[in-house]
């Protein structure tokens, strides 16, 4: 088998450089610039050179005429170069004062007067070495992600090469900017470029979108069902295009839950940050009902009906916690496109919880690390879903894993079918059932889920009843328990949300009522238990992460 990589046709296209320059220009001007740069950065010249990068195929996960997925090792030391033009502030005192509070500013009279100098920077002798995950499909375009920091070295030559201080500073700044560009922006650029190249209808659609977007520049659309976010990403941080989104919406599949606007994810991240610190800033999140606002009656209402939305809440929460782990696609890194990692062959409930416990324990540490903006590892893994939905499912998972080949090759088109998702609606529920029946596992599952004594849940969901006594505490129940639970007391674990299972399974009013009754009953018991074992739990509560202070809007 042989592959033929063509390097030159890419550059032969006359329009290509123009487009690439435009995209690079917009990408470079997107992020806030350091105060030393006082003008827009313009890409003046771009040449990919004649030396192609060396590619070493490490793994090919999927191969067909119209799709491809693989991991490469790339080394590049070619003659590509890039020339940028901008204007810089040459007075160091001016940039020094730029972001300083005026109260403690030394207020120089004229020593800070500015001197802007046009600057031309040429980046050449770029040496790259990276592991690349490449996913291509004719419909979805090309997705390229770097697993590590690709930039090895580069030469920055500029107008100020004679001044060593300025040269070093520029070298440092540019390397930093380029790293973010490579890691964050380049995948998006390439994806967009590929869409234009291979899918002409996409470009038309994109143009339309751009046209539509222009009037309302400050886009604050949040509702994932009504209109998908413009910069949608799926659970793995891959950029999704519009057709993908629409197909998901038509399916009514669960994937829609993992479609977030990055903007909103950032907002959620700031929200959790503000809850952890003393910051008084609360980002405004539309279509969200804050727990503090909702009255008790409303709350119970939303608690009953908003179970479908709960997984999304949970996911966003966990994503915020584990942002640092993101870009690494997965441990078994062969799936690039929103796939669940190959299932662990023997997933028992306990192992799952401990795994999650690690994740939760990492919260504080990862919080301190610098966050990546584009990171959307939502951790919507199998284990989490199992935890929320029911205990028996993990059993099915293990069976599936056993039945599957060691290096699974998932089919690209219908990822949501591979994932056994938490029940969202009765219809979804039915599908779920069939899938488990296919696996011949339902008897055991049913037995498991029903034979659990209710009392065992009490310690589990106890923390989710923080202040109000009469509240059923249903919404945050499933999301929160496993967090708390994995954090503090894995030994006490019992597959928690039998309740959520039954509630959504039933759909009928009687069941619903029964669930409500049980929920309040449990809440009451939990309260009692809390009263008895106050000391133990109060100790535990201290080290856990705070509960999410919002509940999704009841839809």
């Amino acid at each position, binding site marked *: 088998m042989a592959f033929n990589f063509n390097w030159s046709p890419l550059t032969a296209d006359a329009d290509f450089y123009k487009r690439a320059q435009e995209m690079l220009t917009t990408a470079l001007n997107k992020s806030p610039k350091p105060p030393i740069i006082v003008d827009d950065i313009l890409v003046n010249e771009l040449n990919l050179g004649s030396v192609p990068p060396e590619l070493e195929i490490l793994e090919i996960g999927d191969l067909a005429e119209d799709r491809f997925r693989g991991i490469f090792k790339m080394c590049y030391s070619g003659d590509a170069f890039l020339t940028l033009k901008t204007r810089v502030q*040459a*007075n*160091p*005192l001016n940039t*020094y004062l730029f972001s*300083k*509070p005026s*109260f*403690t*500013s*030394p*207020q*120089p*009279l*004229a*020593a*800070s*007067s*500015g*001197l*802007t*100098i046009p600057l031309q920077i040429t980046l050449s002798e770029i040496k790259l070495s990276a592991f690349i995950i490449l996913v291509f499909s004719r419909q979805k375009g090309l997705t390229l992600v770097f697993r590590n920091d690709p930039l090895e070295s580069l030469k920055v030559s500029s107008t100020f090469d004679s001044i060593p*201080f300025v040269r070093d500073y520029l070298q440092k700044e540019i390397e930093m900017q380029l790293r973010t560009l490579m890691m964050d922006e380049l995948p998006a650029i390439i994806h967009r470029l590929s869409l234009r190249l291979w899918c002409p209808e996409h470009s038309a659609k994109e143009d339309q979108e751009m046209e539509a977007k222009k009037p309302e520049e400050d886009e604050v659309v949040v509702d994932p069902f009504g209109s998908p976010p413009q910069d949608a990403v799926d659970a793995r941080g891959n950029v999704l295009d519009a057709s993908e989104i629409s197909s998901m919406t038509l399916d009514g599949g669960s994937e829609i839950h993992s479609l977030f606007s990055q903007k909103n994810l950032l907002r959620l991240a700031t929200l959790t940050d503000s809850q952890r*610190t*003393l*910051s*008084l*800033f609360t980002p405004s999140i539309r279509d969200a009902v804050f727990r503090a606002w909702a009255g008790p009656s409303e709350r119970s209402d939303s608690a009953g009906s908003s179970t479908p939305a709960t997984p999304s809440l949970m996911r966003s929460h966990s994503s915020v916690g584990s942002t640092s782990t993101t870009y690494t696609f997965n441990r078994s890194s062969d799936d690039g496109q929103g796939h669940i990692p190959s299932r662990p062959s023997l997933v028992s409930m306990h192992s799952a919880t401990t795994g999650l416990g690690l994740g939760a324990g990492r919260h504080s540490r990862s919080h301190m690390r610098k966050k990546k903006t584009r990171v959307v590892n939502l951790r919507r893994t199998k284990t989490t879903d199992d935890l929320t939905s029911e205990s028996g499912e993990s059993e099915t998972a293990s069976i599936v894993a056993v039945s599957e080949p060691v290096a699974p090759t998932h089919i690209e088109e219908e990822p949501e079918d591979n994932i056994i998702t938490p029940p969202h609606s009765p219809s979804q529920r039915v599908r779920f059932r069939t899938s488990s029946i296919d696996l011949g596992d339902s008897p055991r599952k049913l037995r498991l889920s029903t034979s659990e004594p209710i009392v065992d849940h009490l310690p589990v969901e106890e923390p989710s009843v923080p202040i109000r006594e009469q509240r059923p505490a249903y919404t945050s129940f499933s999301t929160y328990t496993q967090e708390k639970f994995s954090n503090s007391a894995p030994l006490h674990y019992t597959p928690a949300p039998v309740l959520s299972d039954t509630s959504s399974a039933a759909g009928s009013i009687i069941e619903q009522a029964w669930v409500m009754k049980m929920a309040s009953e449990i809440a009451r018991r939990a309260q009692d238990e809390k009263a008895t074992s106050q000391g133990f739990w109060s100790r535990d509560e201290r080290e856990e992460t705070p509960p999410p202070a919002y509940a999704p809007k009841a839809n």
Partner: protein
Amino acid sequence: MLEFMDYVQHAFYNASHWNFENSYSQLTATARALLEFETPRGLCLNVSSLSSPNFATSYAIGSVGLVDGSLSYLYTSLPLHTTSKSGDIDLHKVIRGYRQIQELRKPDESWMWEQWQGGRRVDKRDTLLYGRLYLPQSTLEALYLRRMSPTQQLKLSAVSDSRLRNGGTILALHQYDVGKYSAETLYSTDGGLIGVRGLYNFGPDPRKEVTEAPRTEDKFYGRFSAGAEMYYGSLNKSGGVSFGGRFATLPAHKGVPLTATLTLNPLMGNLSTTYAVRAGKNLALCSKFDFNVYSYESDVMLGCELWRMKARVPKKKERSMAAKLEWRLDPEEKNPVPEPEIVAGVLKARVDQNWKIGLLWEGRIKELLFTLGSSIDMKRKDQPFRAIGLELQYSS
């Protein structure tokens, strides 16, 4: 318009005989007041009070962004007996306009500050403490001001903000002023910035006895001052230098008062000249020209300030009781002293070569001091008004 706390701080300078203007950093104060005034944004309301001669509070609430505000407190060991009611404050004191420099004052002798009681010195150095908390941002500003001696002053200002690097910065400024010259040294923890500033006034030394009368019949009777500043960031190995000179007429000058300054930044090749005249009793004009010899960039800015005065309503004359009893009219007053006019408002305007216009209208309605301002960009035809703001101040 000066904020209340700045007004109180200036009152402290006056009460402790500190010449605030005699510093290199105030060399271009006139041009800054006429050209670089800040236009308010949004609505802002200040309520302040000098509740005792030693203690002042101020609360501000504004609508920039959502709602923000600040709380500030000020304590001074030197009792301040200044008018603090916004209805009575002289607008010349709170509105910065054309700054008429005054004759140099002889600094106090150090023995003047001594207080003895029972054979022991009991005098203390005057101190001012000030703190301000900006609320949604959780930014804290603090100021410690101490008159160490009649010729020296120490100023420590600090900002604490989680968004700043290292959580905040401190600036220490030591000022030494003997009238004839003044020197300042400063240190900022941000980047380890060290700075030196100096100003020298040519002409007679105020510390010596005046031997000859000032020659006010000259064409220009004024004072020339020259100064320099130098900064060095010890952590980021960067620095800055500037030189400057100013000629300004003194109050005894018989012609049109004027101020001209020239500042020079030799490192960056920047040259800036300003020229301000007080063309009439209520009108001041100012121009500024910047030029950079390296990049050939230039800037022109023009500004003016117009004080609108209104005559005080003359009091209705009533016959006095004594005159009534004696069945005669009151005697006609000879040379009645004209009542001083009161300020109705001040209009400031500036325009630069990019047709950016700034307008400011400051004045008083009843007991409230107001500042109404707008910045206009004529280059943007669709949206010329960049900002409009109204600031209200009430103090008691």
